[in-house]
């Protein structure tokens, strides 16, 4: 381990003084002093990508900065929780909710859907944006014996992508398409069950929404039974 001491940076977050080693993100620095900045696309286990923008903070520049990717600078004065900042977070949450399906498989099983938690935090009861979830247009993929994919509940936070390709090195998941039509895909946009997925479960463990969840075990047993029967048939 290198032991070179890193320079210490002093800054202020929501009026509280903070001191962190150079190279620390604002999100981490805030966490150190007990300020939890909401985020959907980041976890301390992962390389930050700054795509959900929920963690934006005001650092007095022309535009806000995503605190998960923005590094602390000496003398920075960070507004992480004012009404001005929360207003944008609420709009971002509403945007995602306007495309979100009626039922989240995560909320109905383990109750920890992070997008719905934000909806509660911001007390969003009515969304005045056009409904993009009607007819479940983005579809779902139930081809994997163990993992259910609900594309309508995917917010493209890229956590499954980093979980699969960077944490587990299984190299299966990507974004495909572009813009509003962008979605997650497996290998060459194959059904998950026909891809090189090894069902390690990392993607559904890191997924913050109902997009990637556990399938009920019964269906897995059924699938195993089917394979056995097929093998018997071949023999």
């Amino acid at each position, binding site marked *: 381990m290198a032991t070179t001491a890193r320079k210490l940076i002093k800054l202020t977050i929501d009026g509280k003084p903070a001191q962190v080693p150079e190279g620390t993100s604002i999100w981490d620095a805030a966490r150190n002093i007990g300020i939890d900045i909401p985020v959907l696309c980041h976890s301390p286990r992962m390389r930050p990508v700054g795509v959900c923008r929920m963690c934006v903070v005001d650092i007095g520049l022309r535009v806000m900065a995503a605190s998960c990717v923005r590094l602390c600078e000496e003398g920075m004065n960070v507004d992480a929780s004012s009404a001005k900042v929360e207003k944008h977070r609420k709009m971002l949450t509403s945007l995602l909710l306007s495309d979100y399906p009626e039922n989240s498989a995560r909320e109905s099983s383990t109750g920890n859907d992070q997008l719905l938690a934000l909806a509660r935090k911001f007390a969003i009861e009515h969304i005045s944006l056009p409904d993009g979830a009607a007819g479940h247009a983005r579809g779902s993929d139930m081809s994997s014996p163990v993992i259910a994919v609900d594309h309508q509940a995917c917010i493209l936070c890229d956590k499954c992508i980093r979980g699969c390709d960077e944490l587990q090195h299984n190299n299966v998941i990507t974004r495909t398409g572009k813009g509003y039509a962008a979605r997650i895909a497996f290998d*060459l946009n194959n059904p998950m069950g026909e891809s090189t997925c090894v069902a390690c479960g990392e993607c559904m463990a890191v997924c913050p929404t109902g997009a990637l969840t556990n399938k009920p075990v019964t269906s897995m047993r059924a699938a195993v039974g089917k394979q056995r029967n097929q093998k018997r048939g071949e023999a």
Partner: protein
Amino acid sequence: MKLLTKMMHLQEQHGAVTDSMLREMSKEEGVPLYRLEGLRGFYPVFRATPGRKMQVQVCRDIVCMMKGGPQFCSKVKSALSNAADVEVEEVSCVGRCDTAPAATINEVPVSGSVEAITAYATGGKPLPSNAPTTTPRRWSTDPYANEKEHYSVIKKFLKPGDDRQRDEVINILKEADLRGLGGAAFPTGMKWDLTRKAVGRPKYVVCNADESEPGTFKDRVILEELPHLLIEAMVLAGWMIGATEGIIYIRHEYAKEKKALQQAIEKARRFGALGKKILGSDTDFDLQIFVSPGGYIMGEETALLEALEDKRGEPRNKPPFPVDYGLWGKPTLMNNVETFAAIPIILERGAAWWGAQGKGNYKGLKYMCVSGDVAKPGVYCVPWGTTVHELLTLCGGVPDGKALYAFSPGGASTNFLPASKLDTALDFKAMQEAGSSLGTGAMVFMAAGRDVLELAISEVKFFRNESCGKCVPCRVGSHKAVDLVETALAGKPQPDLVALLQDLNSTLAQTSICGLGQVAMVPLMSVINYFPDDALPRLQGSAGRRK
């Protein structure tokens, strides 16, 4: 560059990049399938299955919409619906707004009526030549009277072992107050200086020749008619920062311009202005051209870098900036075509001369792309500080004796202004004070009778269509913005629509990663603010779409 170049080649050869091709490529290159799918799915040039023999791509953006009418694309489609080998697709601006309505047929630009385009597509009329001009015009930013004089500025400054020459160049650029002419207006001298002082090695020089914003086509003319100025400036940039490699990133719609550039590069190599020990100096530098697999977003400099690194062209979070962390994480000096091309004459004649070319207190010369309701659309090189009114007069005024109603001074990302602002000077600051910005210098004139609300919405649609989808505000917000106004135009506006659009615009502007998302709703908001009579009865009342 390797993967995308290979995929472009496959697409060209076979009309598609199929699954089996990607499986083979995955093994050959040792790259997982998901990465190749990520690229194929992102770049519009690629398709998974071959299409028909004749690919007709019709521009759907603002100027073509004005000239061909809002139904132009669907008219071409229905006219060609029975043609066996023809496929028609609507695409974003192809950079030929001066000959709108424009289309491309198998990458060859064509223009004209529905009938003319149909005739080209069905073989009734041979496709026009796509060879570069052999008679380039004389432009006032070219210091050279003839080809023999080319690259004199390199000879003047590239002297071995003397850093004072570099200091002098930086000083001249700063004094000339040259700014990024791709629209961002970042001081060029400062950018050159920062990249020169950046510590990483190796360093790269990149030219952004991916102009794709509706109304913008000036770089196209510079690439075709003045490629030697671009090459010369890139050599100087390499010498300045200590780079030996330069890349020109050009949009695929500019095949003709690419040919002109390629010929000029070969000529420069023969002349000794590219390669080893350039013109007797101790500087080595060479150039390569990279053809973009498509998408406006690659004009955003960090998205462009991601594309060069064989990734999905999604803008990076900044800082760090390319001057420190550019291509492959190394210091990279990137300028727009027009910015580079201005440099030889500034160094040849000095900052004072450049300053004197502007009007009044404004310095220098600017290439403007003029289109829309104007008699002589095209690219004009004018003094900085020329007024919009003078530019309009220079271009023959509004045709058919109509009055001017509005203009968009700098591309899809700039506020529409009313004709009452005609006396504004063409200048970054002056245009800002008038309530808009000069952007890329894409001036679209709109005559009386034009529906500025519909035209502004077409600009928002452009950004929605070209959003990379990386961040939530731009991906979802631009889509919802269009949905909201379309519903209103259908006669069913939702209550408090204008307030909602204002909030949405504020979130897009404040929280999007890059300039695209930040400006996606700008033209729409400008019509609400500056043309309330055109906008409010239809966004707040039930007046709906004009008949």
